[in-house]
């Protein structure tokens, strides 16, 4: 089965470890992620203003690209891209006047009427493939690996785009369970990491990150799994500083859920691109005998 795929900017650069592991895993699961042609930046953050339709052009243009391929569904892996595309789609669907303005402004493009369904890869895994089928395809169960799924903001908020329960999500934990991992539930799993404040207030982000990491550590997690490249940067990269400040903290590996999926499906660890993870997860995987050479 072919599925239209919107990668977004970060998955092509800093988060190549998320993209490569996702594409390879989906192939094993029988789904070809077909990158949409001529995609552009989605705008990253959804514009909350009621009078700024101009910021909806970028995401809508991408949905037009999807429509042109004859597809009615597009999958994103980056949580921010997912959020922005899905919200922009809902906006035009629920606001005929704004849809008209946007279509008129982009007169060179075919009209768009909100016909493309925007989904996140975790939803494809749950709804189109199913935990049982995934579990059957597992070659290397992640036995003994205690992973805490971290959802962040953009997969769950606002409610009308949420891929799971806003306050008590289980979707990523269910996937990790299907992969054979020990799933660690922790109270900070939907708490914001500080997001883009990393550009202007990195110290505050560092405080947020420590709150989140220490919460997972108190629950005895070996590692954290996530989907968002910004959460990944904050939770993973910021640790270097925290390690310098706190003698009792040795670091905790941060995985994209797609890396753990690829590993469990028995794929060559090369596709996981672990060299791009800031805190090297390979010693942990080796200690659990989960790294095949």
């Amino acid at each position: 089965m072919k599925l239209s795929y919107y990668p977004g900017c970060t998955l092509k650069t800093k988060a190549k470890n998320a993209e490569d592991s996702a594409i390879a895993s989906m192939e094993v699961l029988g789904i070809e992620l077909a990158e949409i042609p001529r995609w552009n930046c989605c705008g990253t953050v959804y514009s909350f203003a009621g009078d700024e339709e101009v910021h909806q052009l970028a995401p809508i243009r991408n949905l037009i690209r999807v429509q042109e391929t004859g597809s009615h569904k597009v999958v994103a892996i980056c949580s921010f891209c997912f959020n922005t595309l899905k919200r922009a789609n809902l906006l035009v669907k629920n606001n005929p006047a704004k849809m008209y303005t946007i279509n008129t402004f982009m007169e060179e493009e075919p009209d768009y009427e909100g016909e493309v369904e925007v989904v996140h890869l975790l939803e494809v895994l749950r709804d189109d493939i199913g935990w049982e089928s995934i579990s059957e395809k597992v070659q290397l169960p992640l036995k003994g690996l205690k992973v805490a799924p971290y959802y962040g903001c953009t997969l769950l908020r606002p409610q009308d785009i949420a891929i799971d329960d806003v306050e008590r999500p289980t979707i990523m934990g269910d996937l990790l369970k299907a992969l054979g991992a020990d799933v660690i539930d922790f109270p900070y799993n939907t708490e914001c990491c500080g997001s883009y404040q990393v550009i202007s207030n990195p110290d505050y982000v560092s405080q947020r990150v420590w709150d989140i990491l220490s919460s997972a550590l108190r629950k005895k997690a070996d590692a954290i799994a996530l989907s968002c490249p910004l959460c990944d940067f904050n939770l993973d990269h910021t640790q270097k500083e925290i390690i310098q400040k706190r003698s009792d903290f040795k670091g905790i590996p941060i995985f994209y859920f797609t890396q753990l999926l690829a590993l469990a499906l028995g794929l060559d660890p090369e596709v996981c691109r672990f060299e791009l993870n800031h805190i090297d997860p390979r010693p942990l995987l080796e200690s659990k005998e989960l790294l095949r050479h």
Partner: protein
Amino acid sequence: MRTEISTETLYSDFVKKVEDISEQTLSSCYQCGKCSAGCPMSFAMDLLPNQIIRLAQLGLEDDIAKANTIWICASCITCSVRCPKGIDLARVMEALRLITSRKNIDNVQIPQIPKETIAQLPQVAMVGGFRKLTA
């Protein structure tokens, strides 16, 4: 802090502007504080989100401008999903930011971000941050 309330601020364009941009009704807020209780960035804010809404209801634009709150908000939308009155507070914060940034005022000075930091940051952080914090 002494706060002066007058009909001048109460019926000012500012209140209408915030409501227009955010598409929210400020007077719906009854100050329960749920937004501030759950705000992940509140530890760094001069004034809490519910206090900002109260000031906005009263049209006290200058008091809002003096606080760092709207620039510390990370747009995580936790307040919006938990508000018992259904106010999308994240949109109010955005409207308040836009009232400043539409005057061509940046909150983050891009040239001051060290080159090494820029090289490390993922695009999602830069595009997101610049969109929320600059004009």
